[in-house]
């Protein structure tokens, strides 16, 4: 199997014009994800449309990586492939040293449940569950008893500053608080990678910055890699890794902001 050490040494040999951000990663940094000539083509009403055109990159482990680009540039497609929500039309994807691009549905689901957390633009919380229950929910995968589930969920809710609101219904909290719940839910399974797709798009500027700061804190606290997709450059923190994507191609941004 293609393990992490091999990934670290992997240097894409590509004649395509796109930039490979792995060149900017620190020499000793391990990669959480590697994209190798990944393409994604959609067919809409018999018309083919290429959303990703041979993307190759390495995403360093334990860092916050921003995926930046305008609407329709392929950011979400990139995240869907990174999160094993979709399969590439061509190319290979490696996550934590494992080739995941040809996983079947069940294997991909199992991999996601153990290794990947998601934060969505519209929070995507389950409306009939309370704040605490929403965070507990991903733990249903493992045979964890109820009290332990609660304990872990409370721990992460405390971490995102919602310790007082655990019994509230989702409808009773603000948008910013809902996104904090979503962050706690993404972290509760202790994943290696958290993927956030426009997590601040539905929030005001102040709350947006708070959410990004919170994710930065969580990254440091739980040693989790974050890949955040945004079209708002002002949210990108100092020292973060940056991948610029335009028209399905990864562009050189100089790596670190």
């Amino acid at each position, binding site marked *: 199997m293609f393990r992490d050490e091999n990934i670290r040494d992997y240097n894409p040999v590509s004649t395509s014009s796109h930039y490979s951000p792995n060149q900017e990663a620190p020499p000793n940094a391990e990669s959480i994800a590697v994209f190798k000539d990944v393409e994604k083509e959609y067919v809409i009403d018999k018309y083919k449309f290429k959303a990703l055109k041979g993307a190759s990159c390495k995403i360093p482990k334990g860092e916050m990586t921003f995926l930046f680009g305008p609407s329709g540039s392929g950011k979400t497609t990139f995240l869907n492939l990174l999160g094993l929500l979709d399969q590439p039309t061509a190319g290979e994807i490696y996550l934590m040293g494992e080739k995941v691009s040809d996983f079947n549905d069940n294997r991909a*689901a199992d991999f996601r449940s153990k290794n990947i957390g998601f934060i969505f633009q519209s929070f995507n919380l389950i409306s009939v569950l309370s704040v605490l229950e929403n965070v507990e929910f991903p733990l249903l995968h493992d045979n964890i008893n109820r009290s332990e589930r609660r304990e872990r969920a409370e721990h992460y809710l405390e971490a995102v500053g919602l310790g007082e609101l655990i019994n509230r219904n989702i409808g009773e909290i603000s948008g910013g608080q809902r996104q904090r719940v979503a962050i706690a839910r993404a972290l509760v399974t202790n994943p290696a990678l958290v993927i956030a797709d426009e997590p601040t798009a539905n929030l005001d500027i102040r709350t947006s910055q708070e959410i990004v700061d919170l994710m930065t804190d969580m990254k440091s606290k739980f040693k989790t890699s974050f890949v955040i997709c945004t079209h708002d450059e002002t949210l990108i923190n100092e020292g973060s890794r940056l991948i610029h994507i335009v028209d399905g191609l990864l562009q050189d941004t100089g790596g670190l902001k």
Partner: protein
Amino acid sequence: MIWQIALRNLIKNGRRTIITITAIGIGGLAMMLFGGFVTSIFFGVQTSNIQDQGQLQVYKKDYLKFGAADPDSYTIDNYHNAMDAILADPELKQQIYVITPQVQLAGIAGVAATDNSKTFIGRGVVQEDADKMRKWDGWNVKVETPATGLAGSGSEGAIVGKGMARLLGLCKPLNIPNCEDPPNLVKPLSDEVVDFSDLVDSDLAQNSTEVTENQGPQINLLAAADGAPNIVSVFIKDMQSQAQRAIDNAFLMMHFDTARSLLYGEDPRATSLLIQLNNPNNVDQVKARIQQIIDKEQLNLEVFTFSEVDPTFNRIVGMFSFIFGVVSLFLGIVIIFTITNTINLTVMERVNEIGTIRALGFRRGFVMRMFISESALIGLFGVIMAILLTLVIANIINASQISWTPPSNATPILINLMVLENPLLLAGIVAFLFSLAVLAAIYPTRKASRMNIVSSLHHA
């Protein structure tokens, strides 16, 4: 937590949930009430048959095949021997409530004074035994069959069907309501009328249609077992309507000894032995034991259940079972469509949630379990509603004393919906409804679980 989510979603969509639960509840109510009605028919008709003919009947070997054409050759000779042999078995003695001989006969009944005569189909019964049998109610279904009416009539008493009474011109003498004697009752003798009054004792013949005190009108019966016919005179005590017109127009019941002497003189012969058991659920075992004894004693007899002798009961069971099956099928289809529609709407509303759950790493099976749990809860509540409604409405119907006449009965009986008395049927309906609820959810939930995750997440 799956059940919590399911329950809360049902509460969230309260109006839709109530409509779906009500559809199951009403469908279940219809099935349970009809099932209770069918059960009451099964037990009621069985009880009527058992009260009249017992659970088991013993005949001479091959009587059912050939006895109708040659009854004299297929009688039970020395019927006492057979009865004694059966009752000598201590186990059978405990099981048997009544064992009694019966004579079946056919002949001509005539009223001398009016020159009126017609064929009859008769039974000779031991009055005490027959009346005891008619009080049997092994399933407590409260079917009340009137007594034979032969009690206290001496050996010459007899009962006729209402049609028979009308045709013989006995409506007025017996004061039968809604019964009209034939308009050409008194007429001169003709070739068509069988006149055998001169064969009967002249003193008896004189009184013909006169109602003698405590005895009733007198008729003469002519029948032959083999060779020359015999004649007896009987007094008609009363009439009893029979279920079928053809039988009602010819029915006559008399004392066993009178019928026996009419056919066989002093010979101790009978057409059959009727056996009524204490325990209605032990018939096959007793039947096998009786046949064993008969074979051992080399009596050349056969034992049958009442439904083997007369398949009417099985046809009634078959007919009502078929109707019940068809009704259940249609109700089931309506319920399936209702639940499928509800789950489809739920799935459509929760596409984004399905995508989220799948993104969080849950397999397709988990999504299916989520929606099937919802459907199962709907089924459960629907079943509870059906049971509660059934108990209330069945009690109201049973208490309202509505009567009807079953296919095999001549007299109406009270409707007694037997819902709880047939737990197997009740459990079957509950299982059927619950299974429908779960099955109906499979297609929409399977569709939901196979949705593309990316498309689901972008569903508004």
